Every structure is written in structure tokens, then in C-alpha cells.
């Protein structure tokens, strides 16, 4: 029988070579744009130059007449009658009556070359009636703001709210007024964060083919091939089973590739072009203008603290715009912002507000970084005011197992205290600081997620194993799943191959999102491996003529469970596999579920900065990430996730923002102007993995992908205050803004 109580690991926790390494360094890995097909056409998209405009007329005749053009589609080619989120997806894919943001798709062309397609796009004539627009969340929530869409508010919005509020959210407990009364210091501050993009290296790319019979195929870079299938089917009115979606290798996603953008356009164009496959590859400008950045936020926070650092009450009121459609992660921001703290009296209020910007998509711990920026900044300021050690205050108020979370439920196994204690002992905290240097600390939280999961694994004839998973590998999940399966089967890591498969090969899988792949797919793969072990034990029992319950699996072989079971030499997986054709046929294991036992993850970051008082430039001197992984299956990948999250957060804190002009158009849709951190901007990011195993996972995994982007925003703001005495409350903290704040503080 398979064992489910392995305590000593042979492979889990080791650092074998990554399975995709050679393909990636040699250029052999096939990304979305690398896919070609016979008879392939190239697609291009006409995008709105206006932030908000009524579409009066679209004349595609000149484009259609251009030699080489095989199809043109507009919204008139899409089915009607969709509602809810399906309508939102369709409307975002291709504008209907109005262009809702700069870059909104208006029409698309398929032609025999990319250049012809682009030329044809320029020949499409559109008559617009330009409408007033709004891009800032605080402007968009005003009662007299331009109305993005009438009737878009859902049932959560009470009557009388401003017209662009589409979701309203409120929760809390205790008595905040009494809590503030019990405090020795009550402070209230307002904060803003700007929209940022996930900045994945690989732009969106797909190749779609759809015949007149409604049968189609798609090759696409995505975090979730089933989401692509379901969303494209809904938007185009297709039968989902007739659309087969194959994910390519993926050059980063971070949440931004969990939805559709131009994928339905390639299918619609293909069908109109007689079923010829149509490839669409976005330019970087298209990615920035027309895919899904995160929301921008405007936040008010009020916190009460006693003079010895005990938090007595907190109130958070957040407003977020997520573009011209509902979906800003204001609920998640509120859930996470106070989660590290045990506070009896809390109040949270949130508004999801429409604005003339692209529809936001998920971005690594959606909402949590913004909320952390507001709360962790204010707690730090209060610590400084009361002359308290920010680490001690965090530890004094830290939630533990059995405490009620700020958002309601009681925490199960969590590791915040262990994280804070490990952080406090790290040598980075003892490094002396020089002039213009400051140290900042902040905590962060993410729930982690389970989701629909289907896994199949098969034993090969030579005793090796192949695992079919439905979660694209964006952070090392192929390696971690191979390690868990190899550990379970008792074979070498190199004897397991994990394949990310297409939608026809497995039951429905949610995307790789919510830090779920190593948790959920890993758990399902482990259970599938145990099913295969059970079958191999049965085969051995049959061979020996003993009861299958009397066979156990040890070190990759079946053996009698004890002397009473019989005296037979161990039968290895290779022996069993070699003969499987004559002992009952193929041996495999499957598991389908929404796995339970999700374990949340807390982190704490410490950053030292130096601020140039003449230029306002903030330099990161050293940076430490400490986070509870539950169990680090492949520690190098875990460290990579910690470092990646920190670096994206550093970019969000210091440089990155969507800049819209007065005309409502995006002013910085290229990486030259949308400044992401590069290696030369940064020191080595130090990491420390804390392991408080999650009892809900066979190996203790919690999921590590998202928590790491949460603390950097406030940690850096806190460090800047330490260096300069100036509190920065509006991200990004660019040299210009820091210099202006320094000057203002000296006046």
C-alpha cells in the first residue's frame, strides 16, 4: 500500500536541474509566437485612439479590397445576447457601441503577411464621437464624473452611490469607535498607488484556427488553457468541447495571462477566412495599452495604537479602479491589509469604480500590495512616533493559529510568528546605516488558492513515469511536481517527466493562479502516484498469490509487508512495468478534485535604502525576503519566487506607473518609458525560507508565488522615511516625487 506519512524526504527539498533549462537557454522552447501552421495568416488589430468615444461608423471596405487581406471582423461578427462577465469579456475583446479606453480593439484583419495586415488596419475608417473621459479613481467616483456605462452596478451597490461605482463592499467586527478611544495614538492617512503592469517578458501571442463546422484549435501562451477555451467559447458562441487549446511555453504571466484579449479575434478571423489559421502577436505597446494591468487605488486608513504598541482598532476605506469593467480587487485588498494583525475592532469599506482604462487583470496577490502599502506605512509611522521597534510591534500583534482573522474566519496553521522571529534574527537587521540611509520593514499576506484540478500519470514500460498536468509552468511547478511524484514512487527525479497538456487530455483545470500549482496540482499528482502504487502492489500480490493488503511499497518496489505475508524478494517498479502488458495492462493513476487544505502564507521584508538628497533617487542597498513556504519542494524555485516578487514590488514602489495624459491616452506604452527595474538597479535579493508545514498538503506545501510582492511597497516607503524623515504616500516614489517631498519638508 502507498504510504501517506513520509517524514524523511529523499528528494523533496533538494535542488535538481530544472526540466525546462536546456530548452530555454538553447532557444528550443516554443513560446506563443514560435508556433506556425501551413496556410497561416497574420492578424492585426485596429485600436481606439480615444479614451471614450461613441463608434458611429466603421468602414472596412478599403481594407477588404487590399490584396492579401483574407478577413476583417468587427463586433458585428460576434454573437449577441451575452450577459454578465461573458458580456464584459466580449466587450473588452472588441468594442461595441463605444470605445471605452485608449487601445480598445475596434476591428481586426487577417492577411497573408503581417505587414499587409497592419497596412489594412490603417485603411479601416472609423467615425467616432469623442466623449468626456475619466482615468483617475478619485475623479471617477465623483457624482458628476463621465458615466462609463449605465447600469453596470451590481446588487451590492446601495442606491444613491455615484454612477461609476459598480461594486460596494463592507465588513468588520467589534466597535471601532471604542477601540480608537482605547488608543494612546490614533492616526489617519490617505495613500494612492498607480496602476502597474505585470511586465512579463513574452507578449501575448496565439494561433487560432476555426472551421465553418465550429471545430477549432488554438495554440497560445496562457496561464490557463481551460479558461481560454471557456472564455473564447462564450464570447464566440462555440461548443467548448470542439475547441482544443494547447498552451505554449510561457514567458511569465503573474496573473495577466489568466484571461482573453485577442484570442477570440484570431478564431473569428480564421472562421471568416475559410478556416485558415490566424496568428496574432501583440507588440509591447499593445500589451501595455490593451491587456490587463492591475488597478490603481486611493485609500484612507485610520489606526489606533497604545503607547506600548498594541493595536486597538483599524478602519480602511479603499477605492479602486480596474478599468472600464468591474473587477478591481478591492475586496482582496481589504481582506489582506490587516490580516497579519490581531485586532478586535476593524472596519473595512471598498468601492470598485469604473474608469476609461483597460480592463484590469489579476496581478500577483491581486489587491494585497496596495492594501499593505496603506496599512504597513501607517503602522510604521506610528511606531516611529511612539519610538517603538517595528519588528516588536508586529510580533506583539501577530496573528497565530486559532486567532480570528481581520476578515472573519479563524486561522488554522499559519507561520507569521515564525517568519517574524526569523526575520528579527537575520544579520541584515544589524548592519549599521550611514547618512541618508534608512531601513524599512513590512509584512504581507496572501490566502493561496486551490481550484479545479485534474491530473493523470502513467507508468512507462521501463518504470519511469509521465505526469500530465493542466497548469502551465510559470514558476517551477514541473520540477516541484516531478520531485513529489518521484518521492512518492521511490524513483529518481530524472525518471519523471511532467507535461503540461492541452484541453482534450484532462478534465477541467483552473489556471496556474493563486499560487496554486505546486499545492493543488502537486497534491493531485501525489494522490495519482499513490493510486498507481496501489495498482502496482496489486500486481505484485497477484504474482505472489498473496493478499494485496499484505504488500507495501518501499523505495520504489513492492515487498511483502512482513514475514507473515510471505518470503518474496522486492519487485521493483521496473520489474512491474516491464511486465504490465501481461499482468493486466497499463498502469496509471488519476486524481480530480478541488483540493482542500489550502494553507495561507505570510512574509516579512526588510529593505535598506539610500536616498540621494540632491536628486531624490532611491537606491536599494540590501533587501531581505522571509516567507513561510510550508515546505520548499525545490528551494531554488522558492527563492526565485521570493526574489521575483520582491523585484516586481520594488518596481511598483519606485518606478512603474501607467501615465495617462489629459487626452486620456497612455503616455508611456513602451518599456523605455515604463521603467521596470533591471538587474543593474538591484543588489542580490536575500531570502530566508521558513517552513511551517501546511497540514492540508501531503508534503506541507502552502504556495509561495504571490505573498512576496506584497511587502515591498510599504517596506521601501518605510525605509525612505527612515532615510529622509519624509513619508511618501503616493506611489511610485520616483526621484521627482521624493525630491519634491524633501523640499516641501524643508520649507
Amino acid at each position, binding site marked *: 500500500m502507498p504510504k501517506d506519512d513520509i517524514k524523511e524526504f529523499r528528494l523533496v527539498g533538494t535542488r535538481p536541474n530544472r526540466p525546462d533549462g536546456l530548452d530555454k537557454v538553447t532557444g528550443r522552447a516554443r513560446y506563443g509566437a514560435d508556433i506556425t501552421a501551413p496556410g497561416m495568416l497574420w492578424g492585426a488589430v485596429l485600436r481606439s485612439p480615444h479614451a471614450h468615444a461613441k463608434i458611429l461608423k466603421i468602414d472596412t471596405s478599403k481594407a477588404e479590397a487590399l490584396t492579401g487581406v483574407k478577413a476583417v471582423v468587427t463586433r458585428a461578427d460576434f454573437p449577441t445576447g451575452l450577459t454578465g462577465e461573458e458580456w464584459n469579456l466580449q466587450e473588452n475583446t472588441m468594442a461595441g457601441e463605444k470605445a471605452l479606453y485608449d487601445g480598445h480593439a475596434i476591428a481586426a484583419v487577417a492577411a497573408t503577411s503581417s505587414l499587409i495586415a497592419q497596412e489594412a488596419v490603417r485603411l479601416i475608417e472609423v467615425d467616432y464621437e469623442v466623449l468626456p473621459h475619466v482615468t483617475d479613481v478619485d475623479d471617477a467616483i465623483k457624482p458628476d464624473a463621465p458615466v462609463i456605462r449605465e447600469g453596470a452596478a451590481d446588487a451590492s451597490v446601495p442606491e444613491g452611490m455615484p454612477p461609476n461605482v459598480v461594486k460596494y463592499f463592507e465588513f468588520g467586527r467589534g466597535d471601532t469607535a471604542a477601540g480608537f478611544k482605547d488608543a494612546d495614538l490614533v492616526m489617519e492617512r490617505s495613500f494612492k498607488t498607480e496602476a502597474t503592469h505585470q511586465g512579463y517578458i513574452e507578449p501575448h501571442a496565439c494561433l487560432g484556427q476555426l472551421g465553418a463546422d465550429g471545430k477549432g484549435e488554438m495554440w497560445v501562451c496562457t496561464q490557463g488553457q481551460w479558461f481560454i477555451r471557456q472564455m473564447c467559447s462564450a464570447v464566440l458562441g462555440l461548443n467548448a468541447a470542439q475547441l482544443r487549446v494547447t498552451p505554449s511555453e510561457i514567458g511569465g504571466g503573474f496573473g495577466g495571462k489568466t484571461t482573453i484579449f485577442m484570442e477570440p479575434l484570431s478564431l473569428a478571423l480564421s472562421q471568416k477566412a475559410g478556416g485558415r489559421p490566424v496568428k496574432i502577436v501583440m507588440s509591447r505597446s499593445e500589451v501595455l495599452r490593451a491587456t490587463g494591468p492591475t488597478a490603481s487605488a486611493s485609500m484612507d486608513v485610520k489606526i489606533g495604537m497604545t503607547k506600548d504598541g498594541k493595536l486597538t482598532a483599524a478602519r480602511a476605506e479603499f477605492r479602486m479602479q480596474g478599468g472600464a469593467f468591474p473587477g478591481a480587487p478591492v475586496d482582496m485588498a481589504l481582506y489582506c491589509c490587516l490580516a497579519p494583525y490581531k485586532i478586535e475592532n476593524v472596519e473595512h469599506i471598498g468601492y470598485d469604480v469604473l474608469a476609461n482604462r483597460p480592463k484590469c487583470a489579476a496581478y500577483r496577490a491581486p489587491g494585497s500590495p496596495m492594501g499593505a502599502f496603506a496599512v504597513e506605512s501607517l503602522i510604521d509611522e506610528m511606531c516611529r512616533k511612539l519610538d517603538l521597534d517595528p519588528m516588536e510591534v508586529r510580533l506583539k500583534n501577530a496573528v497565530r493559529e486559532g486567532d480570528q482573522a481581520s476578515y472573519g474566519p479563524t486561522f*488554522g496553521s499559519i507561520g507569521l510568528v515564525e517568519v517574524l522571529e526569523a526575520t528579527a534574527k537575520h544579520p541584515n537587521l544589524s548592519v549599521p546605516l550611514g547618512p541618508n540611509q534608512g531601513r524599512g520593514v513590512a509584512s504581507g499576506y496572501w490566502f493561496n488558492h486551490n481550484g479545479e484540478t485534474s491530473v493523470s500519470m502513467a507508468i512507462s514500460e521501463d518504470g519511469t513515469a509521465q505526469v500530465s498536468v493542466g497548469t502551465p509552468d510559470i514558476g517551477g511547478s514541473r520540477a516541484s511536481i516531478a520531485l513529489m511524484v518521484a518521492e512518492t514512487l521511490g524513483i529518481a527525479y530524472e525518471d519523471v517527466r511532467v507535461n503540461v497538456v492541452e484541453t482534450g487530455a484532462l478534465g477541467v483545470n483552473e489556471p496556474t493562479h*493563486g499560487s496554486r500549482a505546486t499545492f493543488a496540482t502537486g497534491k493531485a499528482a501525489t494522490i495519482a502516484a499513490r493510486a498507481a502504487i496501489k495498482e502496482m502492489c496489486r500486481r505484485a500480490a497477484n504474482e505472489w498469490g498473496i493478499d494485496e493488503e499484505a504488500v507495501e511499497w518501499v523505495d520504489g518496489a513492492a515487498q511483502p509487508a512482513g514475514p507473515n505475508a510471505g518470503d518474496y524478494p522486492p519487485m521493483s517498479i521496473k520489474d512491474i512495468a516491464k511486465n504490465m502488458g501481461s499482468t493486466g495492462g497499463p498502469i496509471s493513476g488519476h486524481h480530480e478534485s478541488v483540493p482542500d487544505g489550502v494553507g495561507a502564507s505570510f512574509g516579512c521584508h526588510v529593505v535598506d535604502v539610500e536616498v540621494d538628497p540632491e536628486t531624490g533617487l532611491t537606491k536599494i542597498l540590501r533587501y531581505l525576503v522571509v516567507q513561510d513556504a510550508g515546505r520548499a519542494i525545490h528551494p531554488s524555485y522558492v527563492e526565485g519566487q521570493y526574489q521575483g516578487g520582491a523585484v516586481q514590488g520594488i518596481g511598483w514602489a519606485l518606478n512603474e506607473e501607467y501615465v495617462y495624459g489629459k487626452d486620456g491616452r497612455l503616455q508611456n506604452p513602451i518599456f523605455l518609458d515604463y521603467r521596470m527595474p533591471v538587474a543593474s538597479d538591484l543588489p542580490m535579493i536575500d531570502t530566508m525560507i521558513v517552513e511551517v508545514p501546511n497540514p492540508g498538503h501531503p508534503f506541507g506545501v502552502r504556495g509561495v508565488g504571490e505573498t512576496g510582492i506584497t511587502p515591498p511597497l510599504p517596506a521601501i516607503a518605510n525605509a525612505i522615511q527612515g532615510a529622509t524623515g519624509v513619508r511618501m504616500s503616493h506611489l511610485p516614489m520616483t526621484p521627482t516625487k521624493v525630491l519634491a517631498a524633501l523640499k516641501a519638508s524643508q520649507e
Partner: protein
Amino acid sequence: MSELTVHLWAGLRRFTGGLEVVTVEASSIGKMLDALVEAYPGLGPIFEAGISVAVDGEIINGGRHRPLAPSNEIYLMQRIKGG
């Protein structure tokens, strides 16, 4: 069937006559959600938009079949998503 105590979020009070904690007779997450909508029809569209249920601290998505007992701590939450 057993009586379950369900914690809503405050924004739902206007659908439940001002109550933030309600009781319903049900034996699973699915039956609990159905019973809540039957008792408070205004909750229907909110649930359709997506919901997670925290049972004894574990946030559950898509688990209508999960059994519930009176001893369970139950919180309704907005559907948890991720990046």
C-alpha cells in the same frame, strides 16, 4: 438537517433585514447557500457573482458538496481569486 450559524459580510445586511449573522437549516455548503437565498432572495445575485465559504478557517471554493455541521464556523466571503 442541522441549524448552521452563518457569518455574512456587513454589506449584505441590507438583504437580511439588518442581520450580519443568520441561521439556516442545511447539511452542506450547497444546501446552505440555497437556504440562504430562499430566506433572503436578495442574496441570490451576490452569490451568482461568485462566493467563497470559509469553514473553520479554511477558504473553500466550489465545494457545494462539502458537509457542514452546527459546530462549524462559517463565514461567507467574496470569491478568492489569484494571480
